[in-house]
Structure formats: C-alpha cells, structure tokens
C-alpha cells in the first residue's frame, strides 16, 4: 500500500510516469504487459529502481518477486543507474574474433571497470552486448548510442577519454 501512495506522489511530480501508464493502459493493464512496461520504465528513467518495480507490480497485479525475477532475467534491463556516458562493446562472434576481448581488457586497465560496471564518479559505464548485428563491421563499439565499426583498443580509449575531459572542462 505504501508503495502505491509513494508512487502516486512520484507520479504527480514526474511526467515520465504518464508514458509508463500509457504503455500499461495500451495493454489493458494486464499482467502480460510486464515486459513492455519495464521497457517503458527503462526508456524514460534509464534504469529500474525498487520504487518503479513496486509501482509496476501494483498497477499490473503481478507479484513483486515475479517482477524482480523478470527484471533480472533479461539482460537488457538494468537495476543500477547508468553512468553519464555508456560504452557498449559488442561481444558477438565476429567481434570476438576481431579482438573485442582486447578492447575490454584495455578498458579495464585504463578505467578500472569491467563489463556491467560504472566508474565510481558515475561518469562512464561499460556494457557488453551479445551481438549488435553489425558483424560486418567487427569489432563494433557503441558510444552513447552511436555505432562505430572496426574499432581498435586505443581508439576506444581515446574516445572515452575525450568524454571525461570534456566533462571536467564544463
């Protein structure tokens, strides 16, 4: 009950909940809308926090544990807030053969974070994708949503370093 009240006030404050509510309504607020709704939450909030999971569970009449089970089953969903910038390294077969592992290792050496982690200052998140489908361009890396093909480890580092520098200048 508390969760519902909490979420409602939150809803009043945050217009993004309207989009989430719209998604749920489109599916008749039925339990099977769970995954679509979680997509909607993540799209508008960047990640799934406990409050939003409770809100969705209440609205769709789905048990809490099931919501949590679904949210953790699918790798696309994240329960932690992402960094300001996200670097996605593709780990598809073609990219692996093309040297994605080296990119990941250098990344870890330079910034001290492994796949699925965010730097302690919350600036950079490193994510791996199982396949971006850009195998013709292996190895592929996505910088804040922009796909770049045939990346070398130092090129990746160069790009990411620029992020951190720009931000400190601002």
């Amino acid at each position, binding site marked *: 009950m508390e969760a519902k009240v909490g979420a409602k006030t939150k809803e009043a404050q945050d217009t993004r909940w309207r989009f989430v509510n719209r998604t749920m309504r489109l599916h008749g607020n039925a*339990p*099977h*809308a*769970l*995954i*679509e709704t*979680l*997509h909607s939450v993540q799209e508008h909030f960047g990640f799934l926090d406990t409050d939003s999971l409770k809100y969705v569970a209440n609205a769709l009449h*789905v048990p809490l544990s*099931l919501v949590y*089970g*679904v949210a953790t*089953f*699918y*790798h*696309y*969903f994240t329960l932690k807030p992402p960094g300001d910038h996200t670097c996605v390294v593709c*780990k*598809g*077969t*073609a*990219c*692996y*053969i*093309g040297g994605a592992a080296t990119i990941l290792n250098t990344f870890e050496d330079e910034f001290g974070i492994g796949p699925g982690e965010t730097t302690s200052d919350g600036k950079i998140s490193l994510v791996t*994708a*199982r*396949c*971006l*489908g*850009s*195998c*013709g*361009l*292996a190895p*592929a890396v996505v910088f804040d949503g*922009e*796909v*770049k*093909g045939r990346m070398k480890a130092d090129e990746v580092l160069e790009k990411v370093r620029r992020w951190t520098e720009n931000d400190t200048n601002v």
Partner: protein
Amino acid sequence: MTLTFEDLQQIAKIEKDKQEGIKYQINVCVAAGCLSCQSGVVKESLEREVNRRGLENWTRVKGVGCLGLCAVGPLLYLEPDGVYYQGVQVSDVSEILDSLGGSPVSRLDCSSHLPFFKRQQKIVLENCGKVDPESIEDYIAEGGYQALYTALRAMTPNEVIDDVATSGLRGRGGAGFPTGLKWTAVSKAFNKTKFVICNADEGDPGAFMDRSVLESDPHRVIEGMAIAGAAVGATNGFIYVRAEYPLAVRRLRHAIAQAERLGVLGKNVFNTTFDFEIKVRLGAGAFVCGEETALIASIEGRRGTPRPRPPFPAEFGLWGFPTLINNVETFANIPPIIRNGGDWFAEIGTEKSKGTKVFALAGRVNNTGLIEVPMGTPLRDIVFDIGGGIPENRRFKAVQTGGPSGGCIPEQFLDMPVDYESLAKVGSIMGSGGLIIMDETSCMVDVAKFFMEFCMSESCGKCVPCRVGTTQIYNLLSSITNGTGKSADIPNLEELCDLVKNTSLCGLGQTSPNPVMSTLRYFRDEYEAHIHDKTCPAGACNCGGSKEAK
C-alpha cells in the same frame, strides 16, 4: 476501408508513374551497418546537392535496405547503370553526381567485388537494396501484397498450406522443421482463437540476417504472417523482436501502421471475412527466448524459461491457444512461394533442402556482409568466391555455422554442399545462418570457450544439466586455455558434453556442447597442445608456457 486488388494495382501504377521521368536512381543503403558508417549523412547531402543542382526531376535519391556488402559501407547502387559504390563519404557526393551518365567514379567503384553480387540468388532479399523500407507504396510497386490477395481471394486455406508443403520450405530458424507440417498442425487444432508469432529474436552472436530483412523489407514479413494467419485461421499476430535492434523495431512499427492504414491489416482484409492484426513485442536480451516455448513465456510477460514439450505450441501455445511460430526468414519466403507456386520454389536447392538461404558472412573474410545463395552451394564458393577469401593471405582454418548451437567445420569439408543434412553430418547445424570464418590466428579452444561462455550466461537456469553442465564445461575450457589444463580434462569434457546434450530440457541446452564437440573432433591436437605443451598453436591464448616454447 477495404482494399481491393484494383486499389493495389492503382497504388503500384502511381508509384511507377512517379518514377517515369527518373533517369538515374541512386540507392543509398540505410540499413544499420551502413548507417553506422554515416550513410544517412551521405544520403542527406546527396539529396541536398540534387536539389541545389535542380536535378530532382530526373534523379532520385532513395534510401533502401541492405545491399549486402557491409564490409565496405556506406554502399550506393546506381540504377540503371548497375554500378556499386563503396565507402562513400560526403566529400564524394558532387563527384558522383558529376559522373552520372558518364563513366563511373573508378575510385569508389567496387566492381572488384562483383562475384559477391553475381553468385547470389535472391528470393528473400529480392527487395533489399531495391525498395524503400519506409514506404508501403514502393513495396506494392514491386508486387507486394499480391500474394496475400491471391491467398485470400483465389485460394482456400488448404491450398495455401498445400503450396507451402509442396515448396518443401523448412524452418529457417535453425532446426529445419518442415514449415508445411507446422502449418497443417496449427490449422487442424480445434480452437477459435489462434496466434501467429514471428520469431525475430535473432540471438546468435554473429548473425544479422533477420535484422537486415526487417530493416530492409519489413512488409514482406508482415505479408508472410498475414498469409500464415489466413491459412491456419489466426487473427492475431505477434512479432517478437530484439530490443537491441531499435531501427528494425522502428521500421516494423512504421510498416504495420502503414499496412493498417491501407487496409492490408485489420478488419475484412481485401473484402473477405479475414481479420488480422499484428503487434510488436520487444525481447529484452535473452538468447533462450529464441526457443519457442520460452518466447511464448516472454510474450506472456514472464521469465523466458522453456517448458518441456509436448504439448507443442501448435496445440498449447500462447495463453494456451494453438500457436504458429516461424522465423523471420521463413515468413519472408512465403509471399514469393504463393506468387510463384510451391513447385517453383521446390526446384531451387537440393533434394531435402529447398530454396535459398540467407547467410551473414563475418569473421576473417574479405567481403563480410549479407548473402543469399541456393541451398547446396559448396562452402568453398561461399568463402572464397562470394566472400573473397581470407584477408592478408592467411590460411583458412574453419568456418563456424549455426552460432552457439553449431559447430566448426574444418578445411576438408569445404567442398561440402551447404544444406541441413550435410551440416548435421559433420557435427554442425544450419542454425539461423551465421557463417563465421576463422583463419590460422584463431584458436579453436578459445572459440569453443567463447561459445560456451555465451551458452553459460544465456542458460535460463531451469534444468540442471544446462545450468551446471555449461558452467563446468566453461571452467574446464578456461583452465585449458590459461595453461592449467590436466590430461583428464579432455575425457571429462566429452563426458559433460554428452550429458548436457542428452539430458537438457530445451534446444539451447541440447545443442550447447556442439562447438566443443566439433572442435574436439577436428582440432583435438590444439586441445592437446594447450594441455601437454602449454602452448597455443594459434598464438591466441596465454597459456603461461607459450613464450618459452616459442
């Protein structure tokens, strides 16, 4: 509003008329591969330049789907000259426009890759690189939705199914189950409510066929699904597509909206009693959801864990209703089969594997990209003619088919025709069509480890052999690759592979040992070198002892 055949022809005519005065057409690839090399910017600047020069009456710039040769994008195709341009940048735009009508810009010309284009036979991809994926009119101008009309107005559902059965089409998702049989089963199921699901959760790392088809020609898949719906008696369709393919999702949604507006989806399609609507459902990053029962669970909003079959989805599927599940490529094959008849399709390919197959060529090969060849084409032709051989003159080592469920095929089988049976015979599978080429610098143990890591992290965790077995196999492989392997590891690997293969619940588990088993079969010496000599013959793994040995 209901659409008639005449309306279709009218739309096609208007579209054709528009193109009447066009002397030159520049097709710019706007599929994800080329878009990531800025083909969108190239297209915009071409359009701007055409307008600036006042050429718009006889020159048309058109965004089209995948042209295939993703390795050298962004790609352009000039009609009617039949010239392909590769690696086009914004700075090349004026030169290209200057050359129209004259000789092509030799610097950008990729005729050297011509065997790549010549050796292919396109059925599924016939519209890729031709039609604008965001325009239903363009699709109709190429004969689109006529097959649906035929299926609804000129054929009975049974005739449609017969045609599909005659064609010998087999599921393109991997297992190769005869499509006609599946359709028959669903059509016979006794229930008023039935569903058609298109499986676009293309999860194989190294495969991008479905994505390209959805991005380049979404209407073809929609038409195929509608025909299936009409044949089996379903009124609702779902397309389960990966959330990782935002472009494909956007184009699909756009295409569905267009189709609904025009009336090829919705109520009383083509003035018949047939109603059909399609919804898009997003996957969320789970390979196992390519398994049909897991996919159903996911559409129902649950964890994507498979359940034991039988009952099969044809009998007990989405929300318990009879459900037809086919892959993107399978549905994309349906309109041409209905248009040209099942016999026409059955003439292509080999005795047991009919038609063509789309492959995503990637890895250590010159021409990476999307290709479509008749079933039975020898692997050698695919790798060396179409693929253009191995870069830097290195030696070919193996080709991996079928992704994490497939196997590695060594050089001695290069002349083998590619079809379901031959691939199975050498310990691999057709899979959804990823072909990863590996050269002498690829370590086969490392490749096996890569796939096992994939299977381990994609295992849903429901059944014990897959959940624990894949982890055990992965642990053994990592100890072998880092130089701490023991000689008992190889028999242990074999034992675990056999166990996981024979006792797992679903297809993911049952096929997950394939990469290990096939590399053990053909490249056992590499495993032994890692264990006994602590060296990696390919020089890819750090086995500790490798430096001294070299």
